[in-house]
C-alpha cells in the first residue's frame, strides 16, 4: 500500500514539475504588470515544436534539443514583448484578454499551417527509457529525469531571484512598482527580461512535455485552465507559490485518478475551489 502511494505521489510530482516549469513565467508577468497573458501556453507549444523540429529535421539529440527549445521560446518572447505586448500594458484588462486570446488562436493556426493538425511525437534516447525501482515501487526513468531537471531549474531560479541584482529588481518591481521606478529601476527592461526568461522556461517545459502531455496545435488552449489555476492558486508574482500550487494540482490530480477513478477530474477541481475560498489571494500571495 505504501509503495503504491509513493509511486502515485512520484508520478504526480513529475507531472507537477512540468506544470510549474510552464506556469512560473506567467506568474511573474502577471505579478509585474498585472498582465494576464492568456497566450502563455503558445510559448510552451513553440518550445515543443522546436524540440520536435530540432530532433527530426536537424537530427539533434534530445539533450541538445532542450536548450534550443529554451532559446527559441526566449527569443520569440523578447520579439513579441517588444513588438506587441508592451503596447497593451496600460490598456484595459478586456483589451489585454482579447489581444492575448487573438494571439493564442493565431499561434494555433500557425502550428497547423507549419506542422499539420496532428499530434507530434519524439523518440527518447535509450537512457531515458525504461523503469527504475525506488522506494519499493517503479518509476519511469523519464519521469525521474523530469523531476531532477525541474528541481535543478527551480534551484537556479531561486538563486537568481534571491541572490542576484536582477532578482532583486524583479522582486522590487513586483512588490512596489512606483517605488522601483523611483529608485531608478527600469521596470520596462525588467519586464522584458522576466518575460524572456518566463517564455524560455515555458519553451523547455513544452519540450519536456511532448512525452508526458502530448503536443498538437490545440496545446495552448487545452492546458490554459491548468496554467491559470496554478498562477491563481499559487499567487501571482511569486516563484514559490506556483511551485506549491503545481505540486497540489499534479499530486492530487494523479492520486485522485488512482484512488477514485470514478470521480475523474472532480477531486482536483474541488480542492482548487476549496483552496481559493481559504486563500483568496493565492497560497503565498498578498492582498493588493
Amino acid at each position: 500500500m505504501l509503495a503504491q502511494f509513493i509511486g502515485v505521489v512520484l508520478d504526480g510530482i513529475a507531472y507537477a514539475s512540468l506544470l510549474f516549469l510552464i506556469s512560473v513565467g506567467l506568474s511573474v508577468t502577471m505579478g509585474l504588470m498585472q498582465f494576464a497573458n492568456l497566450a502563455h501556453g503558445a510559448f510552451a507549444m513553440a518550445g515543443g515544436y522546436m524540440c520536435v523540429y530540432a530532433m527530426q529535421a536537424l537530427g539533434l539529440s534530445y539533450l541538445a534539443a532542450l536548450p534550443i527549445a529554451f532559446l527559441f521560446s526566449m527569443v520569440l518572447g523578447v520579439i513579441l514583448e517588444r513588438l506587441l505586448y508592451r503596447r497593451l500594458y496600460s490598456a484595459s484588462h478586456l483589451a489585454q484578454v482579447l489581444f492575448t486570446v487573438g494571439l493564442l488562436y493565431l499561434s494555433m493556426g500557425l502550428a497547423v499551417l507549419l506542422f499539420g493538425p496532428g499530434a507530434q511525437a519524439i523518440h527518447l534516447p535509450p537512457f531515458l527509457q525504461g523503469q527504475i525501482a525506488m522506494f519499493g515501487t517503479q518509476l519511469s526513468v523519464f519521469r525521474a529525469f523530469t523531476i531532477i531537471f525541474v528541481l535543478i531549474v527551480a534551484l537556479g531560479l531561486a538563486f537568481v531571484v534571491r541572490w542576484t541584482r536582477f532578482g532583486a529588481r524583479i522582486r522590487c518591481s513586483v512588490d512596489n512598482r512606483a517605488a522601483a521606478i523611483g529608485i531608478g529601476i527600469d521596470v520596462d527592461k525588467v519586464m522584458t527580461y522576466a518575460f524572456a526568461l518566463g517564455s524560455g522556461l515555458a519553451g523547455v517545459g513544452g519540450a519536456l512535455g511532448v512525452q508526458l502531455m502530448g503536443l498538437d496545435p490545440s496545446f495552448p488552449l487545452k492546458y490554459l485552465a491548468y496554467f491559470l489555476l496554478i498562477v491563481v492558486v499559487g499567487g501571482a508574482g511569486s516563484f514559490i507559490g506556483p511551485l506549491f500550487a503545481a505540486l497540489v494540482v499534479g499530486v492530487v490530480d494523479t492520486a485522485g485518478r488512482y484512488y477514485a477513478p470514478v470521480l475523474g477530474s472532480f477531486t482536483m477541481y474541488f480542492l482548487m475551489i476549496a483552496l481559493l475560498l481559504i486563500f483568496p489571494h493565492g497560497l503565498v500571495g498578498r492582498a493588493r
Partner: protein
Amino acid sequence: MSATFRYRALTLSVLIFGAIPAIADDLKIGLIAPFSGPSSDAGGPEMESGMRAYLKIHGDTVAGRKIVIIRKDAPSPAPDVARRLAQELVTRDKVDVLAGHIFTPTAIAAGQVSTQAKVPMLIMNAATSGILAKMPYTARASFTLAQTTAPLARWANKNGIKRVFTVVADYAPGIDSETAFLQELEKSGNSAAGSIRVPLDTIDFASYIRRIQDTQPGAVFAFLPASDQAKNFIKAFREAGLDKAGVRLLAEGGMVHPAISMTLDDDAIGTVSSHHYSDDHQTAVNAAFVAAFKTFSPGGRAPSYIAVGAYDAMEMLFQAVKMQEGKLDPDRTMQIWREMAWESPRGPVRFDPASRDIVQNVYIRKLERKNGALVNVEFETFANVDDAGRQ
C-alpha cells in the same frame, strides 16, 4: 409506387426545395465533418480523400450526373451546429444526399433533418449502436463498436487469455465497446480483472497504468478516441514496461489507424487489435483504393477506416443513382441500400435490411513493420459480423 404518392412527393419536394429538382443536374453531396480543430486530422479531409479516391477509380459522373461535394465544417460533436449545417445543405444548397459524421451527436442531429426532409443520408463513421432506428432515411457505411470489439473478446477467449483489464473512454462509444467486450468474455466464463472508464480530458495515464499493474492482468483491452488519448495511453503502456511484464495490449482498431501508428512508431509495434479495415488487406480492390487514396492524402499517408467508410458510401450512392437512372427517390434509394452487397476494400460486405447497418468481416490484426511502414497485418477473420457483434 402509386401515382398519388409520386404526386405527393413532388408537391413535398416543391414545398421543401422551392423547385422541382432537374434530373440532369449535378449530384450534390452535403458532407458534414470536422475540417478544422483537433479532430480534423483524421476527420473531414480523410473522408473527402476517400470519396475522391472512389471518383478517381470509378469516374466522377454517374448516370449523366456529375458529383459535387459540398463541405460543411462541424469541428466538434455539437448537435446544434450539425443541425443548422444540415438544414442549410437541404434548403439552400439543395443537396441530393447528406453524408459524413465523425461524431454520433452530429449524425443524430442531421438525421432528424434527413428524416423530416426525406433526404437520404450516409453515415461514414459515427459508430454508436442503435442510432439508426429513428432515422428511416439513413444507412451506415461504417461499423459499430459492438461489431468490432466483440470479436476481439472472442479471440481472447479462444486463445486462453485470462483476466483482461478493460480501459475505455467515459462516453457512449467507450461504454458500448466495454459492454460488448465484457458480455463476450462472460460467455465463456471469463471475467474482467478490472474495468476503468477514463474521463475524456485525461492527459496523464500514469495512475491508470499503476492500477493495471496492481491487478497484474493477462491482457488489457483499450478503447480510447483515435487522437492524443489513444497515443498517450499506448505510450504510457510501453513506458511502464507492461508489455515486457507479459501483459498483452488488445486495442479497438481505431486506436492504431495509420495517422496514429505513424506518430507512435516503435511504441505501437506488436499491438493486437480488431477492426473491419486495414490498408494491408490483400485484395486487388483494396490495392486500387490505397493507391488512389495516397494521391490525395497528406504525405501519401495510407487510408484509415474513416476513408474506407467514405469510399463505400460513394459505392452505395453510385449504385442507387445507376439503378434509378439518375434519380434518387428516397424510398427506392433506401430499398436499394437495404439489399446491397458488394466487394469493398475492407472485404465482402452486405447490408442488414432491418438495421441498415453493414454486415462485414472483422479481422484480428497485429501491428508490424512492413517495407519500412507500420501496418496492421490481418491474421484471423471473424466472418459476417452484424452490428451487434453476432456472427
